[in-house]
């Protein structure tokens, strides 16, 4: 594990922001930190960045308690992010890199590489206020990753990005992972989570309600629903084996969604083989979006 947060509690006045939160982030993974607005994600991220301290609990970085010096091994792109408007892009990037512990010459060299890569070299001497929002976002991304951190934390990285920049940054994130970086990724946009994340933790009402490998999480939320496609007549539902949820008859085939009783998949297959000509038989795995909504709704129902 690259990073472990253990039993983190954080109280703000009357509001409990984090309630006994524990997460483990495997090395070289992309870890999706999910949850509705106000669930406590940003607080947890700020604790990992040592911007705020937890009331109780501890954060381990490579098995050792997180220290102040570890800050240079972490790169953080906050949700509320910006740049000095009146400062030149180049100067500003060097400044932010120096604060992360890079020397001026080292920072310049690396910035050149990244600015070329992102095609933003011509903006070096421009003031930030002259840049468009998309351009500024590229600069922010570069300054976040410049010091080659072992852990990168992106809080809502795509909010406000256009689709082209979103894709570009997504590619860069996957590229960074390929180079061995571990990434914490907080987002609302579930398709991108599904696309890039290996692990997720879902926080709702200050608690972790779901955690694990993205496939196992989805497995957990599947409902034994299957998509089947066939020709012929299947006849009436066999309640001991399956129930039809939905049928659509076209000119050639019948498309149906059925719920198969737990452990009776083979009987179902036999039944299908006996009665109809099967074209397609596929288990329906819920999307992360569905998992998210279902998990949060279930959890909310429990707490009421």
């Amino acid at each position, binding site marked *: 594990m690259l990073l472990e947060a253990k039993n983190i509690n954080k109280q703000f*006045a009357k509001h409990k922001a984090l309630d006994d939160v524990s997460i483990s982030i495997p090395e070289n993974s992309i870890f999706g930190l999910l949850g509705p607005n106000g669930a406590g994600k940003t607080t947890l991220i700020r604790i990992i960045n040592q911007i705020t301290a937890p009331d109780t609990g501890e954060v381990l970085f490579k098995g050792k308690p997180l220290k102040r010096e570890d800050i240079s091994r972490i790169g*953080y792109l*906050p949700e*509320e992010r910006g740049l*000095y408007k009146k400062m030149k892009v180049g100067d500003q990037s060097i400044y932010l890199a120096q604060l992360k512990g890079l020397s001026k010459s080292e920072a310049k060299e690396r910035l050149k590489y990244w600015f070329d890569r992102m095609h933003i070299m011509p903006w070096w001497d421009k003031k930030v206020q002259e840049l468009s929002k998309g351009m500024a976002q590229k600069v*922010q991304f570069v300054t*976040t990753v410049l010091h080659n951190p072992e852990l990168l934390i992106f809080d809502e990285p795509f909010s406000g990005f256009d689709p082209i920049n979103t894709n570009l940054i997504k590619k860069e994130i996957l590229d960074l992972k390929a180079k061995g970086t571990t990434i914490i990724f907080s987002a609302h946009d579930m398709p991108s989570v599904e696309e890039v994340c290996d692990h997720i933790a879902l926080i709702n009402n200050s608690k972790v309600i779901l955690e694990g490998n993205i496939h196992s999480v989805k497995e957990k939320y599947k409902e034994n629903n299957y998509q089947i496609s066939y020709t012929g007549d299947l006849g009436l539902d066999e309640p001991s084996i399956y129930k039809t949820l939905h049928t659509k008859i076209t000119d050639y085939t019948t498309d149906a969604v059925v719920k198969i009783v737990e452990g009776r998949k083979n009987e179902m297959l036999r039944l299908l083989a006996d009665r109809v000509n099967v074209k397609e038989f596929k288990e329906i795995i819920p999307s992360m979006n569905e998992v998210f909504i279902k998990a949060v709704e279930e959890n909310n129902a429990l707490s009421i």
Partner: protein
Amino acid sequence: MNKIAIIIGREYFVRVKQKMFLLVTFGAPLLFIGLYAFFFYIMMKEDTTERTIAVINKSELKKPLHSDETTTFEYVDKDALYKDLLEDEKYYAVLELPTDIENTAKGQLYSNKQVPAEVSSDMSNILSDIIRQRKIDKLTNDLQIPELEEKIEATKTKVHLTSVRLKDGEEKKSSSMAATILSVLALGVGFMIFFLVITYGGIVMKGVVEEKSNRIVEVIVSSVKPFQLMIGKIVGIALVGLTQILIWGVLLGIISIVSLYIFGASEMTQMQDMAQQGQQMTQEIGSDINDVIHEAIASIEPGMIIKLIVVGFIYTLLGYVLYASFYAAIGAAADNETDTQQLSLPVTIPLLAAFYIAFNVARNPESSLAFWASIIPFTSPVVMPVRIPFDVPWWELLLSLAILIITIIACIMLAAKIYRIGILMYGKKVNWKELVKWVKYKN
């Protein structure tokens, strides 16, 4: 430590490179000199308006006033009426000298417009002289006393009091003028401190609000502690202020040396001209004042000036740090500049109070108000330097400094707490009650 240096560097260079900084730093002294030169010009400008003054001379004086380049005196029929004469555009004014002017020493000057004081006083001076001379001549004639004029002159007496203070057994010459000059200087220093603290404190506040509203602050505090950012900002901006003061000092030095060379000579001759043109009386007063000022300046101890500058400098820095920490906390708590105005009022009030107390203290340096205001840390940075010329006991100075420094440490710690929470808090309307709550938060 290294990171604080990087922050200080940014805060400093970004501001020093700004056009506004250059404009104010180099423009303010120029503006000051321009204004000074303008007033000097106005004062020194000779009156070149040509005027014709009709004189209705009913007295025995024989054409006492003589025309010069600008003023023409026309002696008209002594039965003429001033009203008739004034209807004539030609006459600027009508001077009527009554028959008994030698006894009453009273005449009338009629005009449509207000006559400049200079013009009427010139005439009255000349008339007074003539009448005085006639009286002396008459007396000399009547009493047969030789050199009466010189004897009368010799009776004029003016007693000078040179005050000598005993200090540590040594005699020290001083004059009340010296005290006045010193207290004006000290008040100047006090005002300067007030001005610098409020200006540069405001710059700190603006800087914090800017970082917050730019949304860059969270990026920065993921690399450095909020405390480091706050201290770096306060120190960086202090260095900007020091640079400005240094430039002003050097510029004023250069300008005063240059102006002494260029304008010094001509100014002197003009002054002398004026003195010669003027009356014996004014000349005497003039030289008296000059003497007193020279004496006063001579009696100011250079040590006192240095002490004033050193103490003023220390209090400027400490006062700035104290108030800058408040302003930083307020900037962090506010979402935008409009919010800061409301929140900063309770901080500006003691500073303003100190400014007004300073005026009182300059006149009344031994009062208990002076004592307390120079001990209480929220007013002492402005008030204590004003007291310096009046021999503040060392223990009072040290006590004031000690209390100020302790307060600064406590206030920076409080400000840092508010700052740390405030910079990451968006969209919340913060009041003072809320700030107190933040101070109570742990970490």
